[in-house]
């Protein structure tokens, strides 16, 4: 009965993209040992400043602090492997672009990881300090978990997203399959975290794909008490976007330009839950699971990769014979093209997609077929919206609509005339932000 109740929960629009997950869905996670030097970014984001304490030539152990947090929001940076530090360089990350980094040449033999299991956090303070010490990061906005938990409007609903609707990515699925007990237990602890004697979260929801029936059954059996809700959802793209999970699970509507936190919801992917689970069991946060897949990958795999590993090493692993025509950091729908040799893995990178073709079909003219409007998950009409791009100044209504867009890329994907709708809307949103900022400066002076 519950099954059917959830089954109906979905949103209007969205599409069933061929999920391309067969190549890696049944492959267990293997750990990847980088051979060349690592390039470790010395901060997680430009908005999270750090004070680097690492010096060139020093020998470090696995888990040693390389940079201290600068400010209450920031996170420390830890050494992912034992080895010798090299010169300061810069590294390219898919989410932030160029960041200051330090080279680390891994030692011949890395000593076994020291683990010191801790007791699970019972209060919000314990949870935030644990998350901060272990540099737990929410990938969606590269926001530290401890900041998300203590903002001006603390979330009362926690959604753990195990859907992973992006085609080709299976890292979260493999984590759920291989570490089910542990992850469900951690989710149970999160549901019990208290502040001043009251539970922090009214609801803790774990979303899974309807199609993975055995996984759903297993998680249901393991769920320690009734406070962890299991929500099997249709894996219609882009269901795992926080805005749409918030809408489907809580029926709360995210304001334009806002995000899940503005309506009191916190959405974290399974990877973040796994990082938290590692923190409780005392493992240092040094690696994450990545899916390396795509049509050009001869050896697609789910790999446990230390942070700071060069992306080119992973490409060499997956496609030793030939270079892929295009390398995408993330999934093929919302990922970012990697164009630099200094690209490295970060805590928010969920996978790499190796493509054989870069050429997109040539854009022609709109024939008013309505596909973009029909499939838009947030109810926009991209066909009409992009017509305002040539306007001298964007009207408030248009600017507001561009802010509603969640960058899922469905409109461009389905457009039979292959118009770059998603990119145009993104450009318009950027322009609207600049125009607003310019206006604010004018009024201020």
């Amino acid at each position, binding site marked *: 009965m519950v099954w059917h109740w959830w089954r109906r929960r979905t949103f209007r629009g969205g599409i069933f993209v061929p999920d391309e997950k067969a190549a890696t869905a049944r492959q267990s996670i293997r750990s990847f040992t980088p051979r060349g030097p690592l390039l470790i970014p010395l901060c997680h984001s430009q908005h999270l400043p750090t004070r680097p304490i690492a010096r060139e030539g020093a020998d470090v152990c696995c888990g040693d602090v390389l940079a201290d947090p600068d400010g209450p929001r920031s996170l420390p940076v830890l050494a992912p492997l034992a080895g010798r530090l090299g010169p300061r360089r810069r590294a390219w990350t898919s989410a932030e672009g160029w960041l200051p980094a330090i080279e680390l040449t891994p030692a011949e033999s890395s000593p076994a990881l020291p683990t010191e299991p801790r007791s699970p956090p019972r209060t919000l303070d314990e949870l935030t300090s644990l998350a901060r010490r272990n540099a737990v990061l929410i990938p969606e906005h590269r926001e530290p978990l401890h900041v998300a938990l203590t903002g001006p409007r603390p979330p009362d609903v926690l959604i753990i997203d195990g859907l992973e609707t992006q085609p080709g990515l299976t890292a979260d699925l493999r984590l759920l399959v291989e570490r089910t007990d542990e992850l469900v237990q951690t989710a149970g602890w999160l549901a019990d975290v208290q502040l001043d004697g009251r539970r922090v979260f009214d609801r803790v929801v774990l979303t899974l794909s309807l199609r993975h029936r055995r996984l759903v059954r297993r998680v249901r059996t393991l769920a320690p008490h009734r406070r962890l809700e299991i929500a099997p959802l249709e894996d219609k793209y882009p269901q795992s976007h926080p805005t749409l999970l918030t809408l489907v699970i809580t029926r709360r509507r995210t304001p334009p330009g806002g995000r899940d936190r503005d309506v009191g919801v916190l959405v974290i992917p399974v990877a973040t839950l796994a990082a938290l689970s590692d923190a409780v069991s005392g493992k240092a946060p040094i690696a994450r699971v990545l899916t390396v897949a795509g049509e050009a990958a001869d050896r697609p795999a789910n790999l446990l990769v230390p942070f700071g590993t060069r992306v080119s090493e992973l490409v060499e692993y997956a496609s030793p014979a030939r270079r892929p025509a295009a390398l995408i950091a993330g999934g093929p729908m919302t990922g970012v093209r990697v164009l630099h040799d200094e690209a490295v893995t970060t805590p928010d990178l969920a996978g790499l*997609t190796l493509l054989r073709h870069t050429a997109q079909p040539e854009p*022609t003219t709109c024939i008013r077929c309505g596909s973009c409007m029909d499939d838009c998950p947030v109810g926009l009409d991209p066909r009409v919206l992009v017509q305002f791009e040539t306007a001298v100044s964007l009207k408030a209504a248009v600017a507001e609509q561009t802010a*509603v867009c969640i960058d899922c890329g469905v409109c461009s994907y389905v457009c039979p005339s*292959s118009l770059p709708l998603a*990119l145009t809307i993104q450009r318009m949103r950027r322009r609207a932000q600049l125009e607003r900022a310019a206006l604010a400066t004018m009024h201020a002076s």
Partner: protein
Amino acid sequence: MTATSSETPARPDPARHDGPHIHSGQTDRQMVAAWLLAALVISAVGAVLFGPAVLTIVAVAVATAVGADLLMRSSIEARSGLGSRYAALTGVMLALTLPPTAPWYVPFVGALAAVVPAIWMFGGLGHHLWQPALVGRVLVQFLFAPDLSFNHALASGPILVPGRMLMGDIHNAQPMAIGSYQGWSRINPDFDIDAVSVARPIQILRQMAAGQLPVGRSAPLTVAIRDYLPPWPDTVVGTTSGDIGATCSIALIVVGLYLIYRGFLRWQIPVFGLLGAAITAAVLPLTVPESPGLAATTRWFPATWIEGGQPVGLLYVLFHLTGGQLLLCLMLPAGDALSRPLLSRGQAIFATAIGALSVLIALYGIGECAGYWAVLIGNTFVPIIDRWTRRRPLGLP
């Protein structure tokens, strides 16, 4: 735009996204190719039913449409990925809506009208309001009405006799006396003729609504169906008179299912169109003619009529669904991706209106283009329907 609650930027730097890096692979060319295939299948069926004259009509219509399109393109330097494919589709669709006895200049003028004013003078593909092929069709109906009715008899048209299909000359036809026609399969082929001229089902129904059909008072529908209308299976298989593409309901349904399977037609259009037509036909009144001592009476709800224990009213509704241009209109011109409403909700409203209007015009209107006028009227309301069914962006009032 609402301010966000924390200091970090609300979204990742917009310039960071450059996706999607994959495409569905479904292009406008494939879409038009599927429609073209569907229309060509129907015209092949028409060629079997009405003979080689059909091929001439299709060829003239397509050649004229493509030629006119190329001319317009070169004169205004329009850019489109579709090339002249859509014009070719318009040509075939126009041919499907013409009667098989139309002389060559009818498709020529019709295709010119369809491409030059109806597509290009509106601003090209995606900007026109009315389905171009149907604009051409109703225009030639005004210009060449005598040429379009066979032997100047409005209510009838020719059909090839058994044994002469595919090769017979449709113009070498002999009129069948009303009351003696037992159905296409019972025609006794005469060696001298290739075709017989039989009544158009919709014209018979229109006479019945006006009370002009001498059917008596006791069992009017039974008499009309037995003596004046062709057997109902003939209208399903297509062996009855009518426009080239409009008679064979089976082929139209198959083609519609193919387009639905390919995702280029939504099921809402045929289903709601048939539903709208069936309900309208079930409700709208027929006139029982006067008889000695009794005046003519108008009776509503013909679908509920039971005569001699038989539910003939339901059969009457079925004649409305398969006997005219309704199925052709629903499967091809109404579903045309360039002139239908954008969302499926709007398409359901649109199709229901088309079904209802086509029955209304067939029963109480004039002329032979009931279904085509219904689609054109429906097209007129597409912008309003789109406004009614507009989606609300998430988080906006």
